[in-house]
């Protein structure tokens, strides 16, 4: 990967231990605080990182998962990007495709999340809230990509004012 002079990136690989997710998310929060002075956005990024990481670890078929954290400058502001990668089975890929299809048809982030909240009450396994939380609470744009059995989940948001740290 080529890293430009106006970018900062960090990549972490985790194996199996889901209990590390919160610690890594807080570390990403500390990185955000270093790169930009926007506590609400840093907090949103931490929430997104936690949900992405827990998803990646939980659904990884070989126990391996990774997260890429990137910051880039765009004019006076910038962009923060979180990207997780893990190998997943076919059921998970179907579930993700259905989730993104439904999300793309929703008229608002909040309304879609409220639908997920009502649905979670009937779920016996998992919450089904993680990605919706990134979309609605963290207000980050979500996308996905499959490459073979690899699943890439990406969350990103604009940084209104970046300051001089990149």
């Amino acid at each position, binding site marked *: 990967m080529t890293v430009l002079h106006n970018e900062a990136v960090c990549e972490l690989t985790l194996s199996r231990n*889901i*209990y590390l*997710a*919160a610690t890594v*998310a*807080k570390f990403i929060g500390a990185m955000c605080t270093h790169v930009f002075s926007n*506590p*609400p956005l840093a*907090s*949103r990024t*931490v*929430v997104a990182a*936690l*949900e992405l990481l*827990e998803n990646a670890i939980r659904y990884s078929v070989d126990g391996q998962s990774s997260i890429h954290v990137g910051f880039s400058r765009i004019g006076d502001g910038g962009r923060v990007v979180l990207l997780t990668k893990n190998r997943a089975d076919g059921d998970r890929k179907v579930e993700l495709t259905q989730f993104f299809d439904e999300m793309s048809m929703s008229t608002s982030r*909040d309304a879609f*999340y*409220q639908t997920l*909240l*009502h649905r*979670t*009450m009937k*779920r016996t396994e*998992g*919450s089904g*809230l*993680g990605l919706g*939380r990134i979309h*609605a*609470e*963290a207000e980050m744009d979500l996308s996905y990509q499959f490459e073979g059995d690899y699943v890439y989940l990406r969350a990103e948001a604009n940084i209104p004012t970046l300051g001089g740290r990149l």
Partner: protein
Amino acid sequence: MSVDFDIQANELTSHTTLEAKVLTTCLIGTADTAVRAELDRFIKALHKTATEEKVSQVVVNLRGVDLMNSSCFKSFVVWLGMLDEAASDQKYRVRFLADNERHWQSRSLAVLACFAADLIDVEGA
């Protein structure tokens, strides 16, 4: 009066008291996968005590919680959903205390306030 169902995990603790028909709990730590089952158990016990003691209000102080994942958040959603569907004589109000400096709290609690508008109040500080 203290209760006997508090959470005492490394990651998350609770301290709960019952005074004058108000059940107050203060949570401190990180609410993640490590404590999801404990938090589930705790919230069920909190609800059971609230209905048995016919409290008017349950106060949940989240100010000491630095991060919460969606699995733990689900525990609160299920609780409030169940309370919403309860008979009127089994209902009580829930007041959440949030730390305005922990920005995720105001976002998450705004979502809960929308989910169960007639049941909860949110107080920032």
